């Protein structure tokens, strides 16, 4: 028996339908038993030889009635099985998906996408039969067996004991195997998920792989990984099938052997011979669900081993839980973002130390520094993707943890260095900024982001598909589409993370103008290095070694700050 309270917690909210399914299952058991009893009684009467025609018809009538009832229930059961599975799977998938948002993006940088998306699809799929098939089957079989064994004990203690041994064997043997099975079951899933994640990676990188003639080596990896699945599955099966063999043996002892024993005892005269038909048919009707329990136990087991991974995902630390308030009063007008003594790092390495900064409304602030000096971390902190080790971040004078996430997110938008394009059209991708925007508004945003002309040059214009991850677009085009999202959202805080490709070349001055225009009334943060971009900013923050090295305008810094001059000089040498 595989009952584990942690697993049960995964189907919370579906207990009622699971109970209903169990009731249906038990009802089917009863009808089956009734059906077989009828046959047994019928046989006994035939043997007695004194049966009347009327009685025959009554028996046939009752049996046909039970057959139809059984078939109808079978039909309903098949539907309800799917219904129950659907409830459990959908609930769990949504719960997991929400969890992913609570965990936040930092967790998924280290290569978990393949694994987590396999959990969402395959693991959840494998868990459902545990609840929709195994559990109801188990409970109804146990109930039925109690009734059967009670009757058998009433007829003869020895037969009762033999049957009980058979049933207990089927129910308890799995417990001895569970540890062996668990290791291999987990390994199975790991190998499976490993190949899946591997394929996600190599399919997405296929162009690179082909460019470097690495296909045959990668192919060998795929062969090894899929053979590993074969090997592991077989090992797992070997263990589970030895167990299954014992289960089959145990069930056969409980059924055939018990019947043979009955016959033997009856021929000795120990039990009355008229009972033997009842015992024969009762046992065969009762043991058929026990035999099928052996099959469903494997379904159940797959679910149990999948649940380990699901539970583990549900326990991953939620980095995004910085926003504790569920509802807060609206912020009238965002005046400033303030960082007070903020420190943060990954694992034990400190990346930002005691940062104190204020970003004001109506201002464009640039953050510059070499890579690894903490620019991206600063953005992650302001976005609330990670929680500061020490210090606080404020909007106006309100610490952001006192705001609701919903409210905070509505105030802020970001153009990432590598913005993600979702599967769909360009229109849909821009509308993410504001799903209620009109076509005109979208076009205006695209014009401001200087991407409208390009879009119009495409055969399908705004309805062109971007391809997966925006495959058909260049890095700069993706950033400009993302910028259009940003203009459409029109939030009081705008962050541009390395917008160099969106702002480069001929578009630069135009997009800058648009930015200047919208920066009225807004807080704009630009993480960048380009002299042109930085020079038009109202204030520039130079980061070094996780600390604010200096702050000022372009000309101030050029005159006073060596590090800044160095940063700018390298830039100019190469682009002019």
């Amino acid at each position, binding site marked *: 028996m595989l009952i584990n309270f942690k697993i049960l917690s995964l189907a919370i909210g579906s207990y009622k339908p699971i109970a209903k399914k169990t009731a249906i299952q038990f009802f089917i058991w009863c009808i089956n038993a009734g059906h077989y009893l009828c046959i047994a009684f019928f046989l006994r009467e035939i043997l007695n030889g004194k049966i009347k025609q009327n009685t025959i018809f009554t028996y046939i009538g009752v049996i046909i009635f039970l*057959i139809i009832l059984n078939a109808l229930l079978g039909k309903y059961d098949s539907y309800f099985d799917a219904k129950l599975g659907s409830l459990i799977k959908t609930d769990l998938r949504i719960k997991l998906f929400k969890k992913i948002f609570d965990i936040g993006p930092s967790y998924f940088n*280290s290569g978990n996408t393949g694994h987590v*998306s396999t959990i969402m699809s395959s693991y959840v799929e494998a868990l459902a039969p545990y609840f929709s098939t195994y559990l109801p089957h188990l409970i109804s079989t146990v109930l039925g067996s109690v009734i059967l064994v009670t009757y058998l004990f009433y007829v003869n203690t020895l037969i009762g004991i033999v049957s009980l041994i058979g049933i207990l064997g089927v129910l308890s043997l799995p417990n001895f195997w569970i540890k062996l099975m668990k290791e291999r079951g987990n390994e199975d899933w790991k190998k499976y998920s490993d190949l899946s994640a591997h394929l996600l990676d190599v399919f997405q990188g296929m162009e690179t792989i082909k460019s470097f003639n690495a296909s045959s080596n990668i192919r060998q990896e795929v062969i090894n990984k899929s053979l590993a699945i074969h090997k592991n599955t077989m090992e797992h099966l070997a263990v589970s099938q030895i167990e299954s063999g014992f289960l089959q043996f145990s069930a056969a*002892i409980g059924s055939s052997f018990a019947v043979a024993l009955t016959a033997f005892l009856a021929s000795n005269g120990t039990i009355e011979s008229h009972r033997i038909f009842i015992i024969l048919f009762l046992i065969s009707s009762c043991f058929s669900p026990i035999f099928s329990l052996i099959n469903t136990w494997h379904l159940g087991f797959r679910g149990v081993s999948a649940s380990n991974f699901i539970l583990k995902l549900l326990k991953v630390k939620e980095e995004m839980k910085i926003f504790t308030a569920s509802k807060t009063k609206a912020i009238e007008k965002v005046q400033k973002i303030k960082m007070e003594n903020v420190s943060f790092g990954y694992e034990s390495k400190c990346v930002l130390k005691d940062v104190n900064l204020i970003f004001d409304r109506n201002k464009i602030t640039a953050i510059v520094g070499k890579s690894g000096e903490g620019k991206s971390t600063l953005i992650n902190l302001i976005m609330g993707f990670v929680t500061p080790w020490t210090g606080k971040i404020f909007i106006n004078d309100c610490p952001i943890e006192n705001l609701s996430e919903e409210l905070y997110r509505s105030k802020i938008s970001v153009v990432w260095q590598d913005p993600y394009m979702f599967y769909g059209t360009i229109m849909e991708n821009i509308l993410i900024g504001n799903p209620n925007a009109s076509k005109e508004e979208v076009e205006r945003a695209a014009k401001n982001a200087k991407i409208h002309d390009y879009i119009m040059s495409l055969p399908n214009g705004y309805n062109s598909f971007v391809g997966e991850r925006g495959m058909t677009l260049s890095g700069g085009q993706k950033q400009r589409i993302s910028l259009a999202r940003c203009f459409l959202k029109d939030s009081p805080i705008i962050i541009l993370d390395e917008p160099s490709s969106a702002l480069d070349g001929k578009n630069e001055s135009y997009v800058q103008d648009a930015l200047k225009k919208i920066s009225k009334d807004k807080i704009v943060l630009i993480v960048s290095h380009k002299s042109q971009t930085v020079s038009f900013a109202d204030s520039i923050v130079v980061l070094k070694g996780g600390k604010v090295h200096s702050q000022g305008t372009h000309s101030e810094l050029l005159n006073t700050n060596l590090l800044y001059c160095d940063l700018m000089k390298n830039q100019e040498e190469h682009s002019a």
Partner: protein
Amino acid sequence: MKKYNNYRLFYVVKLLTYVKEFIWEMVLYLICGGIYRIIPIVSAALTAYMIGHVGSGGTIEAGFIILIAVIAALRGIFSYLDCMISHDIAYRILSKFRVLLFEAIERLSPSNLSTKRTGKLISTTMNDVELLEWFYAHVVGVFLLSIIIPIGTIAFLWNIHPFIAVAVIPWVCIVIFIPQIFKKKADIQGNEVRDKHSDIKAVSVDGIQGLKDIIAFNWKDSYINKFKVTASEYEDANIRYSKRKGTEVFFIRIFIAMSMLSVLVTSAALFSNGLITIEWYMVAVILSGAIFAPISEIMSMSSQFGLIFSSAKRVDDILKEKSYVNEENAKSYNIILEPVVQFENVTFRYPGQDKNALNNVSFTVKAGEKIAIIGSSGAGKTTCGKLLMKFWQPDEGRISIGGVDLQDIDGESVRRQISTVSQDVYLLRRSIKDNIKLGHNYSDQEIFTAANKASIHELISSLPDGYDTKVGERGTKLSGGEKQRISIARALLKDASILILDESSSNLDSINEKIVNESLITLMEDKTTIVIAHNLSTIKLCDRILVLENGSVAEEGTLKELMNSSKSFKQIINKVS
């Protein structure tokens, strides 16, 4: 698949061709699986016989009981063999499918994959293939057994009394016929279920990879909703499938039970008239039920046929898809070609577009020459590179390397001649060293030298795990400049005589840019180079410049010539830098 009626047969034949190499294992399976399925029938018949014997006043020996115990033990042994052999065959074939699918996707990439979702491809390679396990482990052998065993049993019943066999046969026929009625519906619904299932994978991959953007644009709730809709649509399809399955179950159960009932009544009549003994009466009744065990095993699978064959179709569709790049007459070339690149009147249009990406483009790059291709986005610069890499092929005109038409060389050999440093550097989810090696057998020393030349060695060595540091997915843990330098190291190691640089310094911060440019100069030494340029600094490194406009060559010349002669060029240059 010509007609719908042949749909299943078509895929059965297709799927069976993969069993060929396991034919002896299959024979062994049929023997073990046969014994495993006959045992319960024999044991049921034996016990029924005994019960009947005792019921009519006879006695039995204790030896009988031991015989039953032995049979029970045999059942355990053969259940083990049955399962192990069938699954061994099945999982061997599944691994084979996964490799075949990888090969197909490798072949189709990138040209055919621009419209496909990776999540869906993975779903086919993992989940659809997994579903075929049902076919190989639970259908192929069982199907034969479910014909042989019932026929044998019916023959046995015929021996007891022909009337009993006659009472069973019609019901068996009806039960076998039932799935035929629902076949078409099952296939359509099965397709729907499998397709919607792959959507779940695709939407979750998109959601996780785009997490930062979803959050940044406060799109979370609607995206969760979108996922909810996808998940529910899949389950709705599942429920529809199961409802139909339920109807099948309904009829199958009725007819199986009716079979038992008719045997019960027929044999009762035979017994009352003294035509059979009580022992055989019992055996007949029990066997009339047992006969359906193998049949219902295949029936319960047949209710899954809709899913199995739609999975088979999805796998087969990818395996047989034709690549846009025709490799029919292409041969593998092991020699190094002279690094002269020639485009002759090349015209090319992406499928589904109504504008040519390239129009009658001709140019030559001499051995060792460095040429920059510039132009506004969408002018066809990147397309030139992709055509040269044989990721696509021209609709008209001819591209050649060292005088050999690319049509005559297979893509693998073409790409052996060329190194690339591209705009969107993809780093695989593995160690930095493996990313530089990309499966080739370079020695550590070679790798360090290349990394040194690419100015990345110092940085890698400073990481806690050095070259064994695992790159975050999609390279997110490294900056743009660092990624680019790793790709330069790759190109240095490959050391092909032709080099394509695609907008190689567009995405970097200033310090990196200087370093990258220095490594690029090292890389370009002595190589025929095509630079798809964005920055003046890289343009300056080239001997000649090609200006593309709307897919055609607008101008050509050295930087000096063009600066002096062409107004439009000056405009472009001003825009570019």
